[in-house]
């Protein structure tokens, strides 16, 4: 029970965090969350035109792509989920070449996964969708909460999406035709 409460609080926090990031277009919350294998993520500090900025990216499979020396960089992240302390560091130097104090940002790399379900036949009972980590949201045809209902969906191929903190993962679900049996004939 206690574990569930902790996860719930974490999820609520993540949702609020993403919401803020969406509204304001940027975040200063530490740690910052990025999706696994995200590319060209932009990080910046308030620019002082006469200053230069030395960035360091470590952990999380992060690799600095562009912008070294400037106030804005892009980073590609790896796919291993986890919290990486001091993953981004920047040291500003003024026009005289004097360095300031390092500014750091911790990074949480979020990797989502889920169970595979199906294939189904029409009339099969609902199947439970399980996302990892828990607390995300399932969307797609015939999805209700954490359940997929093949009867509601009908025959076809469906892509269901599991979302959390701005990150997504998808699964394909198939509902096949059942055999069509003709009327009983009398030779």
């Amino acid at each position, binding site marked *: 029970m206690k574990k569930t409460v902790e996860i719930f609080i974490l999820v609520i926090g993540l949702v609020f965090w993403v919401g803020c990031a969406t509204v304001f277009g940027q975040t200063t919350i530490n740690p*910052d969350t990025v999706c696994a294998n995200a590319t060209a993520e932009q*990080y910046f500090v*308030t620019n002082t035109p006469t200053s230069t900025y030395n960035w360091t990216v470590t952990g999380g499979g992060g690799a600095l792509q562009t912008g070294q020396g400037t106030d804005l960089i892009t980073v590609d992240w790896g796919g291993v989920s986890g919290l990486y302390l001091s993953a981004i560091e920047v040291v500003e130097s003024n026009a*005289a070449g004097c*360095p300031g*104090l390092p*500014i750091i*940002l911790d990074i949480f790399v979020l990797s989502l996964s889920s169970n595979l379900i199906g294939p189904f036949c029409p009339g099969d009972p609902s199947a439970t969708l399980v996302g990892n980590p828990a607390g995300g949201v399932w969307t797609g045809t015939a999805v209700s909460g954490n359940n997929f209902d093949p009867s509601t969906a009908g025959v076809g191929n469906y892509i269901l999406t599991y979302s959390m903190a701005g990150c997504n993962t998808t699964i394909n679900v198939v509902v096949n035709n059942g055999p069509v049996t003709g009327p009983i004939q009398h030779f």
Partner: protein
Amino acid sequence: MIFIYMKRLLTILLLALTITSNSQCVFNESVTLLPAPPYQPGDVVLVTYELPTFTGIFINWIHAFEINLSPSWINLTPITTPLNPTGSAGNWIWDIQHTFIGGLNFGPGWRFDNTGNVDWGTSSQGPFTMSFTIEVAPTCTADILNISMLVIDDCTTGGWTGGGGACCTDPAFQIYNGLVLPDPISTSLIYHY
């Protein structure tokens, strides 16, 4: 017996006071700094120095004005050269370094180039006004900013030896003594688009 020693002691003391008093050659120096302190790296300061009167000992003459700067000052540039009112033939010249005849290592500053009697100063008693600019050097640490002006007579330079070695002993005039602090660096937090 004790009175004899006291009298001798008093005589020596009076003599010392007299010499100290007579050795004062420089009076009422003044200076203006534009802009006024405090200073930051990159500031350029105009220093205007004035010596209203110079009175030598045993006809010692004024010979040079030496500018002494702490290392945090750079780009020393002369602006206004002192005049030579009712002085000897010659000119005040700007010099970065010069070794006087007596071996005194001088510079930077202005020294008088006496065209009549080489190695002498000028008989002018002033007033002398001169100016120069200096720039505060870039720095990453809090450094001392010091400016002083030393007035040198031709007894000290060794150009005039007729005074029995009684040269002017006025200390350098402290024009400014302060600190320069590095520009503060305040980096914002890291933002993520």
